[in-house]
């Protein structure tokens, strides 16, 4: 899975919790929580989406690593790679 493919799936999962998301306007390094008004429930739902899309389970300890789109793509890539 390429990073772009990963990014597309991540954006899809994000869009599920933030429907008004316009991917083009989301800066890769922007803090998602602030940018998209994500709260803990959204975050959890997003992680559930990630889990379904990539078959990975994100432990609570890793939540703080997933602050930007870039960080998420990198984290997912690393997790997929590890398998």
């Amino acid at each position: 899975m390429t990073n772009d493919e990963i990014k597309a799936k991540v954006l899809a999962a994000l869009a599920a919790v933030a429907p008004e998301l316009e991917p083009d306007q989301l800066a890769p390094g922007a803090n998602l929580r602030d940018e998209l008004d994500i709260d803990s429930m959204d975050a959890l739902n997003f992680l559930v989406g990630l889990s379904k899309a990539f078959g990975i389970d994100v432990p609570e300890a890793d939540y703080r690593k997933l602050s930007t789109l870039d960080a998420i793509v990198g984290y997912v890539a690393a997790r997929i790679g590890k398998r």
Partner: protein
Amino acid sequence: MGEFVLPKLGADMSRGRLVEWVKKPGERVARGEVIAVIETDKANVEVEAYDSGTLEKILVAPGSEWLPVGTPLAVIGGEEVQSAPAPEVPRAPPTLPVSAPRDSPPAPAPRAPARAPEAPRPPVRPREAPRAAPAPRAAEGARLHVSPAARRRAQALGVDIATVRGSGPDGRIVLEDVEAAARGASLAAPVPAADKRTRMREAIAAAMARSKREIPHYYLATTIDLGRALAWLASYNAARPVTERMLYGVLLLKAVALALRQVPELNGFWIEGHAQVSEAVHLGVAISLRGGGLVAPALHDADKLALPELMTRLQDLVTRARASSLRSSEMTDATITVTSLGERGVEAVYGVIYPPQVALVGFGKVVTRPWAVDGAVRPREVVTATLSGDHRASDGHRGGIFLDALDRLLQEPENL
């Protein structure tokens, strides 16, 4: 034979728009089943049927214009109307004590089972007469002819009397018109279309203005050590996949629900000058909507649900709230509201009570503070819990007992 009318789904709802018919003409409808989706100023709501029978005729097509509360939407007929049992209805317990006065249940109550005792009341007169010849609506600015009983009931139910069409003599709005409007049944002039967000703002404005106008609020705050609760939750979540994890907010909700058992007068309504304590605990969870506004749908029987079940329900509720697909009963029968603004760094919330409820519990952000433990100052994770109470229904002393109970419950998360 029954009319299915545009129901009143909240104290501040005066109109709605039909989004979708879930049931089709000819289909069986059981009381409590979702029959249609209605757009309100706040959300899209799945509306349940009040009568069992056959959906005989649809009177309003989806996508129609805004309709006043009470507008007939469909005809439900069939031999089993009213006499049919409602085994399909998942939850039977009425929201309010059965002994409540006849005209007690406010808007929050009209969930099918709770309505049952009132349902058999025979019509005072043939329905057709007033319906066939509705009187013209009072001219703009002219005094509405409203019977005193209707006026009082409208106030209790939060029905905007100006949107109710009178069926009484000379077009007077009578009790039945208001009651019909509350569950749905009259006509009114269309309200000019407005931006959805503006409409929601207006709806919130009406409810909150009424609250501040009528409710003598008192405010209490306490700081609760969440250390044990968060540690317990971390170990709980660590052992589970993301789909089974809980948010700490669930602990707060459960603790609130249980604390209410100790101070029941915070859980219920103030109607017509009297407090009505609710036996059931339906937590209205304030959910902010993306792009502004908020709804506070009910988590039914929160005191009786195990934490994982509560989490599932909360997740479902938030998701549906944000997808505008709440059910009518969820919109109307919360017995207290809980709001948390900690996500955005707020330390304490002094909330405005949602009438006719009598209390609101607020939580701020979990922060780490120096805390004296066993004589030594230690950093601890704490949260500020606040209570806004209706001083007509309870006193600060009782509110204090509630917050104290909340604190103690949160010190034993394993027992929640």
